[in-house]
């Protein structure tokens, strides 16, 4: 991919950064610089992937313009001050560089470009950029100096004054910044520059940069291309056009469907054999190139002269000679004056604020959260040191608890000056802390899942959901399939089934199988949905949503007064609690945020169903038959069933309990009662409608059989309990011994699948051994895939005879492990049936893994 990009000279998008980032390398810190800033876009494009990779220290340094943009959107901003630091940097000119520096333990990834951290900058403008991985010590040390300098400008670190020379990124590429001297003065050029290509959206009014270039190479032909929509095409600039200097504009106007805004800045100084290319943030202007008023960052790249041409092709843009009619004068609206900025941090409950002015002895501090004022406090005793004023104050616990997301601090000094800034919540900054915060929340639920309230359960599931969504989004993103699935036309499976099975009129293996499948795979969305609306049906618990006016007219609390605390039947409770405890311990023991993310994404559906079922059960106002049947069934399934990712039924939830944990439980009375209840339920179900071979319920029962089974008295008592819960008359006394025997004779789905797999292996072995007689092979094929598919399987296998290679595919695998091709939907759908055999395009035969 890299080679391909290089041949075509292609810049980078955020996803390329994460593609380049070696999977084995965890990002340790990341620093971004930008002029304009969109917090939403940054979060989407860089922050979330970085957090998922466990990056601890993330900072964004922006020009006051970008900082102002974030404050303007404060009501909806996410993650500032909690997941990353946002600081503005004051400079003589503009803080204009667009730099990405991501450090891992052994390397650094450096992105330099023209695009800001905004949607157009990262996605829709025509921008230039370059991305490097560097790992030599001298390079890394210099990058460290650069990062320190920038962080010190943003007052994140102590003042650093060590100069930052050009940093050699590759033999032929250097990173140059304007921190210590103007960009132009640091560039190296071929000795014989005869042609100069300049692309820049902005040119200074006096055309000083163009003049400087023109005078340095008085014989060189210069072609300047600029997008007039940025407003820089002036009459005086057009006057520069001559035989030697040509000025071009895009042939077509800028439209949504047509060409993009050309915001990239690219300068090519071309000699006979060699060329110097400059690409990055610097415009063709005095502040951009000729002074160090602005902060700018560019890459200077040497290449062969004949390679330059491909760089001059701007995506989706053609050029023509500019004329006076192309001018688009832009009257910029001056807008309101920017406010002063306060740097604020919250360490536990101690709020510290500092600002640059030495004015002000006291004033008022206001904390805003999601666009709302949540706290106001008067302060005095401002401490002065050099050019900074500082004040510290303790927040009340009830205020502190509310600061769960990005908060703005507004300070009005007694001299009338107004300052604004994001509060950096140091306990939350860095994913390590973030993970701990989530653990505190999870801890509260998992420690006592049955007495947590509905809101907490919703939050719990939402948390799981976010993790899952993000995990799948990331997977799709990095697989390059993001956004494609929606446009893909649905492919319909051609696997034959009996049409009559599509009548779902009660009973029937097809519907039963899928009903269970659907129950297990129930989406979290539906679970959430049900939870939210569940309370509507609770007629015994009117929700008093009261307005408690605190008297200040500014804040009203909704009193979430709920509820009668129902309890799950004790028997189920024990299993639930153990599972939740185990979940908590797993997360607790995770040694990195990435491990937490991975683990959470792997939590089986049954655990999520447990959260759901627990809440449902708890809130039942009375024993209503329909609900009880449904929810009891759900709980039973939840306790015993495998997760969504397990088509081959790897393991039940009880099996998931670790041995030691299971050992503890199996000795307990409550666990015994739980097992008795579940066994009674399954046996009664079997009595009502005898299970058929291949039944998944039998698998559940088999899991149960691994535990110590209850004695007959306990089982009978449990059966009475179950019958009563299900609203059935308990006057008939089932013969459990006979039911157990009858149940033992049923072959569960899992066992049936194993039998089928053994038959398949036998069939293949015989084919390898040269057997071709249908009479011998046919019965084995039928045993392997059933009557309906035996013939087609046999035909297929005989065709390949001695070359048959079978690969087992795990349930979460969506690509062939031999040729790495993503399975077509038809194959995926086919592999959903654990007994099916599919064939990959590369020729290998695919079967679902049955590993437990």
């Amino acid at each position: 991919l890299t080679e391909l990009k290089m041949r075509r000279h292609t810049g980078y998008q955020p996803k390329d950064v994460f593609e380049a980032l070696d999977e084995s390398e965890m990002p340790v810190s990341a620093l971004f610089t930008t002029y304009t800033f969109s917090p939403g876009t940054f979060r989407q494009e860089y922050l979330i992937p970085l957090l998922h990779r466990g990056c601890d220290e993330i900072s964004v340094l922006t020009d006051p313009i970008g900082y102002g943009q974030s404050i303007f959107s404060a009501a909806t901003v996410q993650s500032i001050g909690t997941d990353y630091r946002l600081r503005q940097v004051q400079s003589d000119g503009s803080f204009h560089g667009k730099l990405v520096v991501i450090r891992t333990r052994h390397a650094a990834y450096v992105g330099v470009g023209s695009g800001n951290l905004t949607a157009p900058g990262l996605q829709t403008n025509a921008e230039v950029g370059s991305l490097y991985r560097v790992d030599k010590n001298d390079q890394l040390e210099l990058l460290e100096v650069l990062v320190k300098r920038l962080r010190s400008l943003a007052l994140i670190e102590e003042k650093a004054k060590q100069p930052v020379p050009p940093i050699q990124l590759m033999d032929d590429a250097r990173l140059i910044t304007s921190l210590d001297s103007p960009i132009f003065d640091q560039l190296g050029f071929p000795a014989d520059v005869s042609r100069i290509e300049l692309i820049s959206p902005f040119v200074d009014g006096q055309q000083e940069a163009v003049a400087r270039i023109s005078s340095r190479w008085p014989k060189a032909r210069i072609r300047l291309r600029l997008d007039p929509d940025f407003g820089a095409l002036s009459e005086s600039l057009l006057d520069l056009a001559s035989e030697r200097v040509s000025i071009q504009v895009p042939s077509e106007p800028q439209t949504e469907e047509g060409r993009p805004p050309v915001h990239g800045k690219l300068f090519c100084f071309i000699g006979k054999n060699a060329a110097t290319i400059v690409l990055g943030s610097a415009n063709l202007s005095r502040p951009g190139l000729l002074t160090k008023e602005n902060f700018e960052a560019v890459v200077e790249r040497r290449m062969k002269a004949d390679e330059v041409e491909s760089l001059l092709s701007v995506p989706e843009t053609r050029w023509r000679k500019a004329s006076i009619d192309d001018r688009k004068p832009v009257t910029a609206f001056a807008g309101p004056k920017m406010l002063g900025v306060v740097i604020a941090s919250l360490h536990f409950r101690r709020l510290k604020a500092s600002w640059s002015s030495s004015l002000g002895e006291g004033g008022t501090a206001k904390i805003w959260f999601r666009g709302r004022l949540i706290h106001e406090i008067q302060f005095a005793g401002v401490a002065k040191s050099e050019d900074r004023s500082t004040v510290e104050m303790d927040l009340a616990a009830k205020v502190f608890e509310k600061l769960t997301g990005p908060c703005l601090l507004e300070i009005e000094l007694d001299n009338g000056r107004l300052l604004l800034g994001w509060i950096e919540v140091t306990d939350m900054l860095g994913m390590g802390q973030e993970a701990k915060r989530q653990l505190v929340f999870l801890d509260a639920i998992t420690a006592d899942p049955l007495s947590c309230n509905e809101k907490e359960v919703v939050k719990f599931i939402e948390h799981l959901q976010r993790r899952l969504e993000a995990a799948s989004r990331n997977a799709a993103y990095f697989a390059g399939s993001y956004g494609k699935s929606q446009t893909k036309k649905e492919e319909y499976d051609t696997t034959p089934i009996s049409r009559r099975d599509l009548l779902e009129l009660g009973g029937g293996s097809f519907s039963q199988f899928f009903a269970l499948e659907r129950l297990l795979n129930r989406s979290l969305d539906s679970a959430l949905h049900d939870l939210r609306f569940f309370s509507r049906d609770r007629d015994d618990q009117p929700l008093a949503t009261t307005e408690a006016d605190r008297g200040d007219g500014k804040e009203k609390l909704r009193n979430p007064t709920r509820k009668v605390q129902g309890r799950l039947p004790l028997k189920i409770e024990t299993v639930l609690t153990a599972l939740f405890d185990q979940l908590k311990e797993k997360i607790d023991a995770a040694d990195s945020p990435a491990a937490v993310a991975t683990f959470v994404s792997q939590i089986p559906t049954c655990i999520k169903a447990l959260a759901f079922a627990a809440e449902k059960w708890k809130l039942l106002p009375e024993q209503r038959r329909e609900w009880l049947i449904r929810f009891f069934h759900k709980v039973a399934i939840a306790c015993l069933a495998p997760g969504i990712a397990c088509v081959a039924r790897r393991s039940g939830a009880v099996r998931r309990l670790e041995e030691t944990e299971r050992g503890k439980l199996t000795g307990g009375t409550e666990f015994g009662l739980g097992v008795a209840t579940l066994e009674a339920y399954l046996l009664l179900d079997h009595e009502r409608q005898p299970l058929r071979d291949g039944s998944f319920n039998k698998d559940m029962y088999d899991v149960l059989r691994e535990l110590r089974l209850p004695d007959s008295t306990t089982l009978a008592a449990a059966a009475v309990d179950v019958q009563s819960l299900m609203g059935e008359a308990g006057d008939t006394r089932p013969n459990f011994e006979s039911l157990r025997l009858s149940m033992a004779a049923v072959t569960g789905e899992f066992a049936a699948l194993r039998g089928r797999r053994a038959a398949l292996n036998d069939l293949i072995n015989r084919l390898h051994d040269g057997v071709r007689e249908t009479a011998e092979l046919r019965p084995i094929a039928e045993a392997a895939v059933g009557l309906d598919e035996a013939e087609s399987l046999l035909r297929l296998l005989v065709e390949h005879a001695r070359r048959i290679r079978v690969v087992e595919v795990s349930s979460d695998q969506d690509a062939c492990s031999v040729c790495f091709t993503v399975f077509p939907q038809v194959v995926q759908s086919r592999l959903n049936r654990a007994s099916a055999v599919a064939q990959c395009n590369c020729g290998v035969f695919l079967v679902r893994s049955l590993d437990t």
Partner: protein
Amino acid sequence: MSAENGFGWRPITKGTSSGLDFLGLAVPIEGILDAETSGITNATFRARYFSLVPWYYWKYAMRGGKGSARDQRQFAIGFEMLIAYANIARLDTTESTMTGIIRRDFCERKWKEGKTTLPLRGDEVGDTPSPTDAALYGPSLRRLNLLGRHGQFQTCRKGGAIFAEELDKTLGKVDGFARLMDATTVNRETVELWAQKLYLLTPSKRENELLRALLFGSDPFAREELAPRVYTMLLLLDLARTGNTAFTASDMEVALASGLDLAGQSFRPEASLGGAYRRWRILALLKLLRHSSELAFYAVHTHVRSSTIRFGTAQHAAEELIASAVSKSKGLPKSFERLVGNLKDTAAPAWDPPKYDPEEMVRHALSICAWCAAVLRTDSGKDLLAEDVATVGAHLDADLAGYFERLNELLAGPTTVAMRWLCVDRGLARHFQVAARKLAQHDTFRLIEDEDGMRATEKCPIPNIAIRVDSMLSLLSDVGLLRIGDEGYLATAETTQWYNSHIKRLHEMAGCG
């Protein structure tokens, strides 16, 4: 080893198409609707699809033998097409009009071409009719328990089989029916033959009885608990009876938002419908509040587009618009509380602003908000806030109770602050957040803020927010419980008779429970 992973012009992502929920405010409304009218969508206008669709899926299953998901889809497509052709033919002959025909655009085009054979299945026919039409096949038929979906298969459930068996007595016996099950084309004459039988507005008497039973959850579709949909339908019938003249869905929605009946009088529903009434009032108010946010955003968008000035940032654009909207207005009070007070006891503001100029729009948007605040401050409004569904959408900061709290806080301040909240916190800021999240899906950006200042996209449609009242009234008229004319819907004697008998049924059920 050092490496260069990119150098040059970056590939461009297109990102300015228009999504309809550009402020992320649809979720609470959709969530409540799903709970209240499970099985009904904004696209389910024609009741007869509830009987015809299960019939052909049942027919497919009853053919016996082997089939596949692909085969089943092709089978169904043929009948979707046949129903569309038949209805278009009927409308053509009778010179009538009707909405809600699935696959209408394509079939109408083919019908008007005048060819003797028309495509039914195969390459020429698209897989799904349209995203909106597909909604019928998604939630509705499954939630009404008529069909099930397992993977790519549609199954026919008991409820669907009840319809199918009834319809098959007539439709299944039509000459040439067997051939249509696999045909890739159909003759015009055959379509004309089916036009009478498949016309969506003329179910047979028994079919109509079954459709009514389905919508109102009565025998043979009765379940132990009545679906919330039944309360909603009865509520609509009750409200419909209060109008002296024909009414439209939007009249009904305004009545709900105001707490009045169709004649403008105070409305108090039958006690058993009280919960449903309050929830529908919440929906109607949420619709208005969402509209006010979108209108305010649209005002800023228009301001950016139409201004000769290039605004540096969204803040500049918003603040300039707000200042100008307030200063140029003669009737706008300086305090938001006064504005709310002025709108107390007035009729609901119109959906559309008097003029589509930015200042008018933003003032109108604020008036809608203020009117909702005034309604919520009344006693009946406070009752709404006590409902659980008033907090639906709280996690997205889009719930009614959240709106009320914020509007209450704004009362003490000047109108400009309330306007800023509406334009910025509810509009621009949400948009930037939502759009950034959706960009990866190639969705929505309507205002773009970057180094060259603010740009507005060329298109910014304001969505018409549907809360299914329209489709429910249409379904009620399809089964003959409301009469529809050019002016709108009208209650009839049958409306009252049906309403009374079902209210009685509710009471009986409550008594039994």
